[in-house]
């Protein structure tokens, strides 16, 4: 036990050192910490710039061409405001939807377009008219109209940033709404001008190899001076320095990326140990898992601190939470059974889920948003949402282990009978854990619904699909109990039944898009998810036929 504790301490020190390395200040960096009011909360300019660039360009940094060094979002957004005309001819706007490109008469080969190409186009006005007509019917927007909506958003964001109207930097005494750069009081304007000049000089110094250090210092001073003025003007509304600092740190560290890197290392070392049939070396893998899990947890803690609520209110946040749960369950199962397989499955599932979360910001929105009115109850969010989604984690683990097991069937069951049996045990246990969380989760959901909507059960699609998931796994567990499902059937069920979870979790919000749980609705990614599900169905069928063709000795 002591040795485990020691290891864990070492691990935590190691992962904390990542944060320390990342957190060191650079001159010219102060601008990133400038508090900005946007989308219902105060955030650092760094976050604002990254989110804005993501809307416009689809990424958090801008690459002028293939080989160029990426430019950070805060410089991109600053220059958009200081000299919008210099961006007119740069391919800055990401448009991917083919029908939209067709209607604009633009090439489908390219992904990025200049403002000139898109908005100086007569057809752009027609498309915007089309969108506004559709909106007037108040019907649901199809993917095509969602793509138009994004185009409108890109246009609007660029225009408003260029005009300085969207960047709210100065608290107002009278209203909740902060004052934007364009409306700054006359006596404050020079202070912001200093920032602008500082940015120009700093960027100039970077390209012309001038005195970067000096220009950076000047810019930092200008930003600090502006912040002092804001603080003096409304001291009670300008108190969040720590939080803003933490948020920039969170942006820099990108904890979930570190987490999946660790999970990857863990999975690789487990695979190595296992292919080589090594007796020792598990500790290395464990150390990587522990690092990954710790960073994963820290990232989660960051979001709790920044958002002041349990971070389980949109698809991105639940993917983070569910993968965390899957790793946790795999650790628990592994510690109980010591089969060396569960922890491998867990790290693979964690790795996969975190990569998905990290790679599709347009679909899985990682920005921290204020809560919908009906969700403003931390108590119920924790009790209902977190129990339901943690059950998905167990099912996800069952899915990963099922996949692994089927792989053994493909490799030849005869040689791996013992492993298959162990994996089946894992699938069964994981399903039990899932059912044990899902059932109370659904009931608690009913109680919350009764409490806040006035009915215990209303056949809302989200609750209905949660019930379908439960029924699915109950059928599987009972079928196993009476001997209908053998090992292969169990592993295949682990994979196939997870499709129900995908439907309840992703499908209801992104495909059906109906019902009272509309606060979680989103769009996009259907093609990837369908291919994912389909591939697994094909894989299960393939494994089935391989298994059939092998004469079983049992």
């Amino acid at each position, binding site marked *: 036990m002591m040795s485990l504790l020691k290891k864990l301490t070492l691990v935590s020190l190691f992962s904390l050192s990542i944060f320390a390395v990342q957190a060191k200040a650079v001159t010219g960096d102060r601008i990133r910490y400038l508090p900005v009011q946007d989308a219902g909360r105060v955030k650092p300019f760094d976050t604002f710039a990254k989110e804005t660039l993501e809307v416009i360009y689809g990424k958090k940094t801008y690459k002028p061409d293939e080989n160029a060094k990426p430019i950070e979002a805060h410089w991109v957004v600053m220059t958009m405001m200081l000299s919008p005309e210099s961006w007119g001819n740069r391919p800055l706007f990401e448009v991917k939807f083919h029908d939209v490109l067709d209607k604009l008469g633009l090439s489908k080969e390219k992904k990025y377009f200049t403002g000139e190409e898109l908005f100086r186009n007569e057809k752009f006005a027609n498309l915007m008219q089309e969108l506004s007509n559709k909106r007037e019917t108040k019907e649901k927007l199809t993917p095509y109209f969602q793509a138009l909506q994004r185009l409108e958003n890109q246009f609007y964001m660029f225009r408003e940033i260029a005009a300085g109207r969207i960047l709210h930097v100065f608290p107002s005494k009278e209203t909740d709404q902060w004052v934007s750069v364009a409306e700054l009081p006359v006596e404050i304007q020079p202070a912001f001008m200093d920032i602008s000049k500082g940015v120009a000089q700093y960027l100039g110094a970077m390209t012309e190899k001038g005195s970067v250090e000096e220009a950076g210092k000047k810019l930092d001073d200008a930003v600090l001076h502006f912040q002092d003025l804001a603080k003096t003007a409304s001291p009670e509304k300008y108190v969040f320095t720590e939080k803003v600092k933490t948020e920039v740190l969170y942006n820099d560290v990108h904890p979930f990326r570190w987490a999946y890197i660790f999970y990857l290392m863990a999975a690789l070392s487990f695979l190595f140990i296992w292919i080589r049939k090594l007796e020792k070396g598990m500790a290395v893998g464990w150390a990587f898992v522990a690092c990954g899990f710790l960073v994963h947890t820290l990232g989660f803690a960051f979001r709790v601190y920044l958002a002041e609520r349990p971070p389980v209110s949109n698809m991105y946040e639940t993917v983070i939470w569910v993968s965390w749960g899957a790793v946790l369950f795999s650790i628990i199962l592994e510690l109980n059974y010591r089969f060396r397989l569960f922890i491998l499955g867990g790290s693979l599932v964690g790795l996969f889920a975190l990569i998905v979360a990290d790679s599709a910001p347009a679909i899985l929105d990682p920005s921290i948003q*204020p809560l919908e009115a009906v969700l403003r109850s931390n108590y119920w969010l924790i009790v209902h949402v977190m129990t339901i989604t943690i059950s998905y984690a167990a099912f996800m683990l069952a899915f990963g282990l099922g996949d692994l097991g089927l792989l053994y069937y493909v490799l030849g069951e005869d040689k791996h009978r013992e492993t298959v049996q162990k994996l089946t045990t894992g699938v069964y246990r994981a399903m039990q854990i899932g*059912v044990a969380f899902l059932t109370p989760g659904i009931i608690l959901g009913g109680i919350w619904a009764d*409490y806040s909507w006035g009915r*215990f059960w209303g*056949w809302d699609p989200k609750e209905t699909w949660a019930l379908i998931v439960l*029924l699915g796994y109950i059928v599987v567990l009972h079928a196993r109990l009476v001997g209908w499902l053998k090992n292969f059937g169990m592993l295949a069920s682990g994979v196939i039944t997870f499709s129900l979870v995908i439907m309840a979790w992703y499908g209801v919000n992104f495909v059906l898009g109906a019902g009272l749980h509309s606060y979680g609705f989103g769009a996009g990614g259907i093609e990837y998810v369908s291919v994912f599900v389909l591939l697994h169905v094909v894989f299960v069928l393939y494994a089935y036929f391989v298994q059939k063709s092998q004469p079983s000795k049992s």
Partner: protein
Amino acid sequence: MKFENKAFQKFWKISTSFQLGIPVLAAIAILIASGTIIEAKYNDAYAARRLIYESWMMYLTMGLLVYNLTIVMVDRLPWQPKHYPFIFVHIGIIMLVGGGYVTQKWGVDGSVAVNINGKNNYVLMPQTDLVIYATFDGDRYTKMFEQEVDFFKNPPTPEKPFVVKLGETTLNVIDYVPYARLNKKVVVANSPQAGSSIKFQLMNANVKQVETITQTRKDKRAEFNFGPAQVHLGAVERKDESKNEIYLTPKDNDQLTYTIFHKNNPKPFKTGLIKIGDVVATGWMGLELRLLDYLPQATEEWDVVRTEGLTPLTSSAIQVQRGQDKHWIVLNDLLKIFADTEAYLMTYQNRRLDLGFPIELKNFKVSKYQGTMKAMAYESEVVIGKDPAAIKGVISMNEPMKYNNYTIYQASFQEDEVTREPVASIFSVNYDPGRWIKYLGSLIMSLGIVWLFYQKRKRKTAV
């Protein structure tokens, strides 16, 4: 359990086995999954409820589930301690299903809209009724017909209409549109009791406004309020001298006269005959009145366009035929049909349930996230009930209030289309006699599940 009769033994075995249980669970899963797809297709929870969740298929599968769960328990008689957790789970599920049935059968789940500083004691229920009144003198109405109708499930068609016989007259409901986009239009009416309709334009350098005014029946004045001025269609009857007014009065069935008053002046400024296309200067703000159309006998009708599904702009509508005339009635609106000597008033409406006590809205507040239009919370300050027993309180999201077995929840609100200020609060009002059964069932089932987990499995095969 064992039975002598072989056929019954076989039947019993199937009833207690998973050969029944698993298909039933699978059928329920498929049924309710299709319900969610229907809801998404029409964007309408009501459609899914009527077509799936309250259908005979649902009752059948749920009945089979309860049957299976019960028989399996009976089969294990006499029970031993090892059976207890499984019996708990099964009884819990049966109670949940039973409680749900009680709620659906005897519960109330409706909505009440209350204007700020207004009162309401009627709950709008999902059931619909067709009600017809008749009048011979235009003032007194007699209820001739009232019946619950379910056109959603049994839509009438021209071939199979819903027939209402009222003495000599027959009214046929010949069409039902669940999701209709609506526009008002004015059509020529043949009845001498029908009112008139005008279409006119008021214009000066800054304003160009086209409006239509239609009388609901002959000689019943109708008006349009144009801010500083009022336009009336009907006999001249000056009441409010503080306003500029125009009266357009039908005369001898096909002519129209105009009378213009200036404010604070009892005498008309100008009067005369006006024909379609004529322009008359009103003498205020350089405004001119141009008559665009005049129909001596006209009614307003709905123009109905079918749509794929529910949107905030759609409503359901039925089409009624009397002789050769066809008319649309929109849900919760009324239609007037003129016969030779009598007139009918027809409504197609959601049933209204009298709560027996009023809900009074004193104030309504929406708080927003800083610097945005995104709502953070809604709060309704209400007084519920009649005076000695009235209670005051605040209803907000996640914080309902109880009164006389009813629970009143914050559901939504209405805002003014122009100012975006809230004008009314919408509550959902609910009475649920099955609530305690469901809660008790949940508790028993949860206990059973926890127990099952602690129970040592004898059969290792599962793991």
